[in-house]
């Protein structure tokens, strides 16, 4: 997918490779707009296109328009690497946003580092920014942070023994490992540890096993896609009377629809401010950016906002903020400005980056949410 967005009628010509006007800032993106990770990449691509259009209508950054070159890597890390090379060598972009998945991000990362081009990833894994690499940043909180937030909440409830049922896809497997790595710090033990394949249609066997495990007080389900919805439905069918925790991977209205409001009743998960936009306090520092993004995205696409599009929104905010502060579109200057991002409110949280933190979020970025009557509510 190759779309060069400008407000001029020359858009098509530009897309075919004609050289762009000099007074514009070229940024690139490689996202998984199609393929197995399309539920991440599609809202991300739409978000970026929308934001570039908005910004150019408003006069760009210091009068310079932004030209976005967007490729669809289909979730294939090999393609993502080729597109990253193409963005840098051929399209001569000054920064790259993207990598919807951990695999594609890891592929783009080494190209960006080799060529010293700032890169903001939209994928979850902690490996992307740990250890810190000079030119690589990311916007989503890590799955370890999601685990910590969930265990914090369990601790408050006095829960000490849990069962886990995790998807075997990249997201589920990675979060399962991260949760097991930090669970001890919260004085919680994992008594049952089950998995399912992302395409499984029934998880009652695994859930029955967890139910029959002595002492289990709550169940945690790291996973995304349709798996967690099926887990939630099976959970109610088996009438398991224990708190059910889902991950931030299903923090969207789609999850409630898929699982059904009855089955999803009482489910807890760590989510972002974006899901509870209408419940945010008027003085919440995230409220303006959340409201603006939600209104614009829903008007533009006619679909409700989700956490993933928000990641792209935040990446774009961080990047354009950095370019404006740097007063330059030189990759090195942009990199330095991104690293000094401070107190920038995004939809995911408030970003404050530093030389040894290229994510810039802490646990407060997550809000513990509970589903009540088919709606998201904040757990106090």
């Amino acid at each position: 997918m190759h779309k060069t967005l400008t407000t001029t009628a020359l858009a098509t010509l530009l897309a075919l490779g004609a050289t762009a006007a000099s007074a514009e800032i070229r940024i690139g993106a490689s996202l998984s707009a199609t393929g197995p990770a399309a539920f991440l990449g599609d809202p991300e691509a739409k978000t970026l296109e929308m934001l570039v259009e908005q910004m150019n209508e408003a006069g760009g950054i210091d009068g310079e328009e932004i030209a976005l070159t967007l490729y669809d890597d289909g979730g294939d890390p090999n393609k993502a690497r080729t597109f990253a090379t193409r963005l840098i060598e051929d399209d001569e972009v000054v920064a790259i946003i993207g990598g919807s998945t951990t695999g594609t991000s890891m592929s783009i990362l080494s190209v960006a580092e080799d060529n010293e081009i700032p890169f903001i990833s939209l994928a979850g894994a902690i490996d992307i920014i740990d250890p810190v690499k000079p030119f690589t940043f990311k916007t989503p909180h890590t799955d370890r942070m999601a685990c910590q937030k969930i265990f914090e909440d369990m601790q408050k409830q006095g829960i000490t023994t849990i069962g886990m049922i995790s998807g075997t896809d990249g997201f589920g497997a990675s979060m399962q490992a991260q949760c097991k790595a930090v669970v001890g710090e919260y004085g919680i033990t994992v008594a049952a540890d089950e998995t399912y394949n992302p395409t499984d249609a029934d998880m009652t066997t695994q859930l029955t096993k967890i139910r029959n495990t002595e002492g289990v007080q709550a169940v945690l389900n790291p996973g995304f896609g349709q798996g967690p919805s099926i887990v939630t439905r099976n959970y109610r069918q088996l009438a398991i009377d224990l708190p059910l925790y889902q991950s931030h991977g299903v923090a969207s209205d789609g999850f409630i629809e898929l699982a059904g409001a009855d089955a999803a009743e009482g489910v807890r998960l760590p989510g972002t401010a974006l899901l509870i936009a209408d419940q945010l306090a008027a003085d919440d520092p995230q409220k303006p950016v959340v409201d603006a993004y939600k209104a614009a995205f829903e008007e533009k696409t006619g679909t409700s906002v989700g956490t993933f599009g928000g990641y792209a929104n935040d990446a774009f905010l961080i990047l354009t903020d950095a370019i404006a502060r740097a007063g330059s579109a030189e990759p090195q200057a942009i990199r330095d400005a991104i690293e000094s991002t401070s107190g920038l409110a995004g939809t995911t949280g408030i970003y404050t980056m530093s030389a040894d933190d290229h994510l810039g979020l802490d646990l407060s970025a997550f809000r513990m949410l509970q589903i009540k009557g088919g709606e998201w509510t904040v757990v106090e």
Partner: protein
Amino acid sequence: MTMKLTPKTATLLVLVALVVLSPVLFPSGYYYRVGALIFVNAIAVTGIVILTGYAGQISLGHAGFAGIGAYACALAPVHLGLHPSLALLLGASVSALLAFLVGRPILRLKGYYLGVATLGFGILISMVLNNERQLTGGPDGIEVPELGLRALLNDMGLDLTNGQFWYWFCGIAVILGAWLALNLHGSPTGRALRALHGSEVAARTVGIHVARMKLQAFVVSAVYASVSGSLLALQNKFITPDVAGFMHSIEMVTMAVLGGVGSVLGAVFGAAVLTLLPQVLTVFAEYEQLVLGLVMMLVMIFLPQGLLPSILRRVRGKDE
């Protein structure tokens, strides 16, 4: 045309000329990357030419061997302390051994049955890479150590960018691979393979050990796929189980069939077309898959022997 040259020399000359002269036309470093990818694919497809083009056997699981080659380069340097170049050889040996063990029973099958059996093999490898998380990093993939040869060349005063280095490195590998495949074509083994392709019964009656010959072709083509996977992993410095995925197996066979499954040059040609097309078609955005499918259907309908052999035949005026 090339009357005095043997087809083997002619093919090699064309290949060398392509590899050496193409960079003259490259407007930016990105084209070196695409070139290197074409060569990586061409190596795997040359293996398919030996298996399918020469011996007439089908494999829908060769990406499994590419996966073994790729993960050997990711894992052996870390766990066994091997240099990445030795890891490539280790991967090739493991692939050969596995092909030998698996090939014995499944090459008794023919046609669809062989296709399905190899398909199962490929899926098994892909599942192992996905599920053995503590070793392979699972679906998120794993980092691959630097080969280190480029730094060595830089020390010797040959300053290549990363893209250029992999272009030349894979270019040399593809020429070597083609040279071996062409030598095999004319050797007694190659003739035996082509004979059993024509008729297994007839081949057996003239004293060819059919089972052994098929197994040899399977092992050799597995090594090609493994080397191709290793080169991809070393070049990308990161690898995910996608490399062993079903789609990658299909891609290899499609490239071979599209280019012309009986010819080594066709393999390179098919790899080039199918690697380049998605890059060119990015301007069609959503219609990319549609155009890709249409191109393949048209080629199969109008040029059933594959692009290159059909074109050459027209050029030489031997079209019936």
